């Protein structure tokens, strides 16, 4: 049976529609701790204008955010803060590790700096650079949008699973000069304070 549809009618699945809505309204949580934060601000400003991708609404409360952008090095003392803010963000949520420091520790190869946040929170996109250009961050957002479009259902129940909360290393092990493997990811223990 042939059914003719006018040219201005689109046919899709509800799951795809939900993913399309999610990917075009990513509200970033700027976890900017270092110079990558300056590039993050430039990304939000008028010249690079991340509003073209629906991600201009930087929110300073995790309650309203979908996308955590960790911009800059994270020291061990800051790590509980990072994990708590990650857990406070409502599902569905994604994380971009922006810059060399957040992804691997960068030049700060020392005991006090986290050697890659993907050991402690789940990361969806890694942005190389020190600091990355705003174009690179925009590319990461575009790639993340493609990833969001591939996954997800209408009701989004799969976002609520415990596995989505926990760190899962996606970045391949970088070959260190000594050849030592990167440490395994650690599970997040929720901490509600005193």
């Amino acid at each position, binding site marked *: 049976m042939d059914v003719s549809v006018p040219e201005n009618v689109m046919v899709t699945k509800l799951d795809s529609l*939900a993913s399309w809505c999610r990917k075009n309204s990513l509200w970033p949580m700027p976890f900017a701790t270092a110079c990558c934060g300056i590039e993050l601000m430039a990304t939000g400003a008028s010249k690079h204008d991340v509003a073209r991708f629906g991600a201009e609404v930087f929110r300073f409360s995790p309650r309203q955010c979908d996308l955590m952008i960790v911009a800059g090095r994270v020291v061990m003392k800051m790590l509980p803060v990072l994990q708590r803010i990650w857990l*406070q963000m*409502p599902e569905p949520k994604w994380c971009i590790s922006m810059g060399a420091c957040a992804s691997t520790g960068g030049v700060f190869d020392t005991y006090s700096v986290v050697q890659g946040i993907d050991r402690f929170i789940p990361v969806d996109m890694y942005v190389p650079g020190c600091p990355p250009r705003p174009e690179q961050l925009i590319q990461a957002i575009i790639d993340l949008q493609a990833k969001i479009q591939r996954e997800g259902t209408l009701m989004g129940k799969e976002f609520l699973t415990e596995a989505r909360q926990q760190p899962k290393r996606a970045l391949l092990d970088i070959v260190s000069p000594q050849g030592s493997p990167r440490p395994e990811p650690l599970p997040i223990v929720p901490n*509600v304070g005193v």
Partner: protein
Amino acid sequence: MPALPIFLFAAVSTFVALSILVIAQLVGPRKRTAVKMMPYESGMDPVHSARQRFNIGFYLLAIEFLVFDVELLFLYPWAVAAHEQGAFGTGHGAFYAVCGFLAVLLIGFAYTWRKGVFKWT
């Protein structure tokens, strides 16, 4: 009916706003956890409850500030209008009127002063 487009516009925008809220309520995944329910203090431990009690003096001082604030707010347009009418020349009607207004506020101010608003002990 010339106003029909306005009603249509209001109806459509109300419908769109409500449907967005309802769809988000029905479809959006949500999970309440203890960490999400705690007050947001930029990821730090909250040191005490946000429902803190303040000295009543702050409230009274704010009220007193409001008296003078509103007074000044009225005096500015009064001054312009009185100047344009030449009220300072003959009659002085506008001047006596504003004196009455100030007197009312002054009585209230004197009352609160008498009641000891400025004694913080």
